[in-house]
């Protein structure tokens, strides 16, 4: 039941929010509900939870089945931590119709949690769309100047992806022996080689767009740039994980043969994307776009590691899913504070933050070094295992991927230098002490960075069973 309640709480809170017109009160409702969700998520992650299983659409034999294994747990934990953090950090930002905004955010949260818990393909698809649709509204209504065009691109892109996936689901479903959407039935479906390949391609396209994998990534920097920051945070911290999750939960187990035969292709594509995005990040002047490309690079590493089909790579990805979310959240929050107070995201106009607001600069530097996976920060462990897996797969590819270690240092330190160091610019001079609540969540996030960086075993323990299922036959 705890699994069902973690889904219904944000959903009910969202409906309530539609009727709470008062901004302050709307904030409280959103924060309170997401805090309860977070408590439940901790409970699920550390105590384990029974599955939930009920009839759903009987005529199709689709079931409302929720399961929480290590993979689900780590992502639920990330989702549940992200939302209150985002709500608190952006609680002071100007927004019209705040209650509607928050309601849509909570619908998204419901969808995300559902995606990670669903054990039935149709249910998975249902939540997948539930997570996406509110985002279109959030971007197109509350976004930046170019929001309409950008949201349209985003919409078309992901809509196409979803469509492919739906076709894929139907294809596999129609070949299951017991006409069921359950993962187990999907695994045992009688697919010809051609059908398996087609289904693999359909699923892969959907997930590749979501991650995104090069060259399907161009919607992402635009969407990150034009979305309201709270939405950008959801997109980059949690939503991109839907693609990776899909690969781990559905793509690899369902079509192992096709995945193995296309491993080279996917890994090479991913790694090209990693280096490509890193190079582009070096030349960005807009903080948001820089973080966006940096994120594409980091996600590319994860997707490459997944297709190496090694236990070490899977382990790395499982914890990196979480760590990447935490780090990118931290960076976004700092970037948002700067943008809110200076009115600019252009690094040319910034500088001298370390002199003007030392505390914020320290936090920025902390997340920046976590972003480049400095040892004893959380990202090191994950990326260490990830690079290891790619190297194991093919040493040359490992070395090629490794170049991103250097490139990441270049663009991240560029960013730190331009924002934090130098003399105080006119824009930076407008900075005031960031509000206590934003500072508080940043410190909490940085705490997570170091705790899981020094003692990553916490995360390993959560994800251990998934690894067992996938690699110990």
């Amino acid at each position, binding site marked *: 039941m705890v699994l069902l309640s973690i889904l219904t709480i944000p959903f009910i809170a969202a409906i309530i929010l*539609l009727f709470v017109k008062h901004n302050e009160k709307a904030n409280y409702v959103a924060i309170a509900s997401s805090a309860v969700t977070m408590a439940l998520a901790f409970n699920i992650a550390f105590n384990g939870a029974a599955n939930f299983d009920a009839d759903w659409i009987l005529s199709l034999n689709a079931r409302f089945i929720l399961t929480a294994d290590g993979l689900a747990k780590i992502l639920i934990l990330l989702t549940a931590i992200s939302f209150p953090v985002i709500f608190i950090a952006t609680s002071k930002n100007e927004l019209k119709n705040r209650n509607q905004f928050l309601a849509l955010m909570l619908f998204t949260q419901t969808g995300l949690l559902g995606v990670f818990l669903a054990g039935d393909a149709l249910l998975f698809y249902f939540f997948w769309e539930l997570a996406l649709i509110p985002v279109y509204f959030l971007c197109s209504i509350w976004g930046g100047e170019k929001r309409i065009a950008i949201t349209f691109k985003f919409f078309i892109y992901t809509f196409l992806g979803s469509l492919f996936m739906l076709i894929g689901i139907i294809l596999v479903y129609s070949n299951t022996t017991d006409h069921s959407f359950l993962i187990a039935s999907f695994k045992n479906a009688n697919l010809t080689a051609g059908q398996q390949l087609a289904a693999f391609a359909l699923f892969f396209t959907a997930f590749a767009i979501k991650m995104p994998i090069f060259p399907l990534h161009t919607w992402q920097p635009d969407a990150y740039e034009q979305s309201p920051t709270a939405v950008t945070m959801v997109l980059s911290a949690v939503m991109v994980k839907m693609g990776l999750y899909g690969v781990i939960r559905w793509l690899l187990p369902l079509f192992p043969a096709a995945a193995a035969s296309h491993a080279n292709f996917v890994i090479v594509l991913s790694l090209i994307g990693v280096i490509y995005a890193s*190079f582009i990040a070096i030349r960005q002047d807009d903080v948001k776009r820089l973080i966006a490309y940096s994120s594409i690079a980091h996600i590319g590493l994860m997707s490459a590691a997944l297709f190496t089909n090694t236990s070490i790579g899977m382990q790395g990805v499982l914890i990196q899913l979480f760590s990447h979310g935490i780090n990118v959240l931290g960076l976004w929050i700092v970037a948002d504070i700067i943008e809110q107070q200076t009115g600019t995201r252009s690094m040319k106009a910034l500088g001298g933050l370390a002199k003007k607001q030392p505390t914020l600069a320290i936090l920025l530097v902390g997340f920046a070094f976590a972003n480049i996976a400095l040892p004893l920060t959380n990202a090191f462990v994950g990326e260490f295992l990830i690079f290891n897996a790619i190297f194991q797969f093919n040493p040359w590819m490992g070395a090629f991927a490794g170049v991103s270690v250097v490139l990441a240092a270049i663009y991240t330190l*560029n960013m730190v230098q331009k924002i934090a*160091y130098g003399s105080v610019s006119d824009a930076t001079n407008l900075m005031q002490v960031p509000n206590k609540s934003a500072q508080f969540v940043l410190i909490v996030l940085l705490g997570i960075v170091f705790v899981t960086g020094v003692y990553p075993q916490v995360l390993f323990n959560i994800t251990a069973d998934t690894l067992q299922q996938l690699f110990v036959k």
Partner: protein
Amino acid sequence: MKLIIGFIVLWPLVGFLFNGLGRNIWSKKTIAYKATGYVLASFILSIIAFVNVQAKGAITVHYFDFINTDTIKIPFDFKVDALSSLFLLVITGVGTLIHLYSTAYMKDEEAPHYARYFAYLNLFIFSMLLLVLGDNYVIMFIGWEGVGLCSYLLIGYWFTNTTYNYAAKKAFIMNRIGDLGFLLAIFWLIVKLGTVSYGTVLTAESLAKLSTTDITAITLLLFVGAMGKSAQIPLYTWLPDAMAGPTPVSALIHAATMVTAGIYMITRSNILFSASEITQHVVAIVGISTALLAATIAIKQNDIKKVLAYSTVSQLGYMFLGLGVGAYSGAVFHVITHAFFKALLFLGAGSVIHAMHHEQDIRKMGGLKSKLPITHFTFLIGCIAIAGVPPFSGFFSKDEILAAAFAKSPIYWVLGVIGAAMTAFYMFRLYATTFLGKFRGTEEQAHHLHESPFAMTLPLILLAVASAIAGAIGIPELMGGHHWLSHQLTPIVGVTKEAALSHSTEWALMGASVSIAVIALLIAVNRYKRQADGEPQTALGKFLYNKWYVDELYNNVIVQPLNKFAGFLKETIEKNIIDGAVNGTGKVVQYSARKIRLIQNGQVGYYILFMVLGIILLFLCWFNDITIHRFFNN
């Protein structure tokens, strides 16, 4: 013992947190006492650990599992043996003195910055201790990158200065290139052996499992890491720029400790390195080339810290020469003596800069001998030590490396002696220009010239004593000594094969190198005791003055093309080609969409309402379904 060893590392971390978090709270006095005190505490515990190793031998202690999964296990273990305990003493010992010195040197900084400075310094000691204490390559790597971080933070300590920020960034990125090599070596070890713990990797059994190619690749990759951290060709250009940091930082990090990490790493992995002929040649050749290149540059520099920086690069080159010819204990010996005299020289330079009100150009100094007597005298000892004049410490360690080099190939020896002559020359050029002759600075500077306070001169005196007598730990048997150090290191590097040279050859080599160095030294003093160098006139002079134009070369051949490439990807490929294709497709879709958009009325409330209704409908589907089923079944 487990606790004692743990606290050697923990105290500096406590200091970091104390000053880092309390930077707006504590008074400068508290900050200084705490920061220095924590490192001193580590030093005392290090002595205990050292004595324990002497009495009971090496120990390994386990704290927790850093990474423990089905496929890989990386324990958080420390190893205290002869090698790491020696490094512990040097790091915490010299570290304490430099902290003490800093309390006075940095006294003009405001309290929060003063705290920040000491927090970084403490964090550096913490990372460096992790580096040498770790019992596997991953822990070493943690410290390895950690010292890189601290170096970055300290070079850019005066962060409003853009030039300094560039220097800091350059240091970190060049180090990262090296780190990548190190990282790949670790992966290679994991793939082949499944472990990175010294206890398993550095054994004959593991060696047997590795092919020659594996060993060569692993050692070369490790060496790439060492090139970055220890500033060897081609990754050395960050070190001279690193002089942007406060002078005590240059002394501690960029001379005495961090840059010797590469030597530590190779000495630790000596079993692997000795097993690859190719790597040994590469190490020796890179080492001697770096030693010579840096020495030629040092001859023409006029910034007191730049001369010392190139001198450091050059001396590190000697150490790598030693490693390349298999003289591991000689290299470690030189690490130790170099730590003393180079820290001394840098701190002496700091004392001069302090007295000169931040003037670093030696052409504007001169005649400081009488004004700064303690600084002068100790600096002179440092110069004699580095020049290799017996019986000062540098002589013994350099001689050991040169003798081993001769045994491997006389060419190495000849080049080594040429480098030694240059070393003597540029050091005494520096000494004479700075301290002898007449004062060439401004009236005002002359008026304010003063000897530094006790907190600064005390470290100078102690380091001068150490520089003078530290050779005693490695007096060769040739001179009736016992060579305590090489006996110490025998368990780690094996019995150092005494170079198969007859005693008479050894005496001859020693005599030759010392007399050449002394001649060079006298020429330098004679030439520079009255006047300083003018602008370089000859083509060669300009070439050396401009550091062989290596920075310009890197900039034009690597940095700029890569930057252009990035711009090309961003502007052409990304914007026009990839996104162009996407948008082209989009336009077609958009056209058709325009036809059906009339359904949308633009009211947010409606959208949300419909969405919620839809969701609820789907949620309730199962309910309907059941009813329908029942209906049909009835």
